[in-house]
């Protein structure tokens, strides 16, 4: 976990004070809404259907237990007792009052939390693998780089008024849990043939009205050059990104418009002029930030203690949960535990204040006080001793976060949709809830295997539906809610955009359609372990389209 120093604290205090003054001026009529809107967006404050929504950034998805407790307090004191974890590792509160915001921000500021640049045409939360720092798969912890970029991009004087929002993600593992290919800048930290660690830099990924996967513009960027190269990309974008049409203003459009080679050239030209300037990262600068990342004082333990093995053999329920929620840790004797925020009939990604407080306590007890937030809207306890797993499981079960459905069909990713969001065309949460009810039988869900459903209530795609194995997009047709269904999308290192299977279906039919798709897969798969996503790749969309639409066309 990154530890703030006196500079970080001072900066945050000044930001909180500035926002308090901006709110005061707005309430007094000294600022019009037009002038204030961008300022409040720079602090993560949206106006939604029923109230203001506050989005608090959780840098690269890492939370301390005191931070999680503070979020619970804000949920109780300033909201309606719950919060929503998002697809960018942030948290949202849906019932905030503007006049109480400065106090809530100040409270959160005391635990190093804030909404700076979580919305607006700014550089957003730098996201990463929720297993960063603990997975054996990574070459090193990407969060140090995420922190360097985060600081560099915070209230950057040149890039605070970009053409549009800007999202950066970073991964350091071969299996990409950070979805870097759907980001404006995606950074892959890897070792080249010579064994040096550096970044592959992709640009121009993004979903929304016109989805694109990112394209590589730099195969290998030495660590020293990370900030200057990012600066060069942003400078090109800030100058040449479109400002006339909000739907064509992302960097993905610019890259597509001028071509990736030309874009890479523009960046290279700009970069050559600045790469040896003050942005070059000297080892001392990197070491300074790295030094303030504290890692747990792991005990020296044997892997796979007998107590664990025995429990897995004798306790069926525990074994089921273990297989679903527990992942390998790089330190022997430890494990990574995923907490499901996807109960049957629940709102994907929501947690009550009571749950947050309980998870914070469990983090203190079992995970060195640390929690992670994943973009798939689940939580993680990243440093659990294997010998504590049984005890932990009971505790997690008691607070409702131990449903063994991780990565299964009921582990749905969904935006808040029309129940909350003023941008939405249709609801997403009740659609997700119904699907979880249809697949409540976990044996069925397990037999379907890994199957990611993503639901968005509008084309802004906050649910990342384009990259869902099954993607569901809410649209409006003659005042009614309809849903377009895609299949075959994926967000990982083999990223793909999904393919539409046919005409949009009405609200009442969506869960049936998902059942039909699941049934088709079960019939058509070559072996039980051929994943849904692989079966779709092999078979194409046609067999699924037939199955879904045959019944619906009155045939």
């Amino acid at each position, binding site marked *: 976990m990154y530890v703030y120093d006196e500079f970080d604290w001072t900066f945050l205090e000044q930001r909180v004070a500035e926002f308090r003054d901006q709110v005061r001026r707005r*309430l007094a009529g000294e600022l*019009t809404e037009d002038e204030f809107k961008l300022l409040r967006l720079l602090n993560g404050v949206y106006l939604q259907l029923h*109230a203001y929504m506050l989005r608090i950034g959780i840098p690269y998805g890492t939370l301390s237990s005191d931070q999680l407790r503070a979020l619970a307090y804000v949920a109780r004191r300033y909201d*309606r007792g719950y919060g929503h974890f998002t697809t960018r590792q942030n948290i949202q509160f849906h019932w905030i009052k503007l*006049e109480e915001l400065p106090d809530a921000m100040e409270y959160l500021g005391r635990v190093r939390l804030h909404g700076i640049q979580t919305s607006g045409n700014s550089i957003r939360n730098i996201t990463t693998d929720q297993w960063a720092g603990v997975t054996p798969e990574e070459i090193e912890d990407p969060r140090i780089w995420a922190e360097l970029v985060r600081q560099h991009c915070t209230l950057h004087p040149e890039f605070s008024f970009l053409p549009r929002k800007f999202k950066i993600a970073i991964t350091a593992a071969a299996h990409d849990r950070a979805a870097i290919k759907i980001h404006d800048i995606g950074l892959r930290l890897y070792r080249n043939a010579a064994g040096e660690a550096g970044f592959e830099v992709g640009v121009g990924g993004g979903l929304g009205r016109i989805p694109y996967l990112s394209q590589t513009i730099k195969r290998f960027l030495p660590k020293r050059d990370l900030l200057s190269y990012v600066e060069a990309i942003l400078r090109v974008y800030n100058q040449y990104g479109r400002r006339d049409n909000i739907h064509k203003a992302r960097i993905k459009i610019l890259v597509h418009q001028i071509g990736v080679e030309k874009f890479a050239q523009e960046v290279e030209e700009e970069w050559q002029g600045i790469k040896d300037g003050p942005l070059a990262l000297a080892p001392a600068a990197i070491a300074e930030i790295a030094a303030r990342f504290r890692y747990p004082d792991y005990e020296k333990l044997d892997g796979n203690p007998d107590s664990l093995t025995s429990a897995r053999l004798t306790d069926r329920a525990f074994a089921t949960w273990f297989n679903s929620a527990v992942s390998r840790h790089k330190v022997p004797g430890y494990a990574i535990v995923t907490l499901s925020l996807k109960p049957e009939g*629940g709102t994907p990604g*929501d947690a009550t204040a009571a749950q947050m407080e309980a998870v914070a306590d469990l983090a203190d007890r079992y995970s060195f006080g640390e929690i992670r937030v994943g973009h798939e809207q689940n939580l993680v306890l990243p440093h659990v001793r294997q010998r504590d797993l049984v005890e932990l499981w009971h505790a997690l079960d008691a607070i409702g976060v131990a449903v063994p459905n991780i990565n299964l069909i009921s582990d749905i990713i969904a935006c808040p949709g029309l129940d909350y969001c003023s941008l*939405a065309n*249709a609801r997403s949460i009740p659609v997700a809830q119904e699907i979880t009810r249809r697949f409540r039988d976990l044996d069925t869900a397990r037999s379907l295997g890994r199957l990611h459903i993503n639901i968005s209530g509008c084309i802004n795609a906050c649910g990342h539906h384009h990259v869902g194995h099954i993607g569901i997009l809410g649209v*409006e047709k003659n005042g009614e809610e309809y849903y377009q269904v895609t299949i075959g999308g994926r967000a990982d290192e083999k990223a793909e955009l999904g393919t539409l299977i046919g005409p949009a279906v009405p609200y009442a039919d969506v869960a049936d359609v998902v059942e039909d798709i699941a049934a088709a897969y079960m019939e058509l798969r070559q072996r039980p372990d051929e994943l849904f996503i692989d079966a779709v790749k092999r078979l194409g969309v046609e067999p699924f389209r037939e199955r879904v639409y045959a019944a619906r066309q009155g045939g």
Partner: protein
Amino acid sequence: MTSPLEQKLKVKGPVVVTANRLRDGVVIYRTADAGWTTDLAAAVVVTTTPAAHELLKAAVADDVGAVQPYVAPVELTPDRGVLPGNLRERIRVGGPTIELPLSA
């Protein structure tokens, strides 16, 4: 249910002007006396584009009273009075259509 932020003003039935209250974001409706109410039943209903335009203009000018006003359809019923005219407005009146999590 198309986001009203993109709507072109073309009034085809009874409408009201609605917005959110500046200080707390609560849903409000424009009244006949150039004020705001949280009760849809007390909102002024107009039926022509020019009238809606006037109402909206005045609402937009009240930058401290309300945020992001827009024209929203309503349904006039003989027995139940003024009802929200589409799903979005029903949700704004009634709240989310799902059960909110109950915190212990």
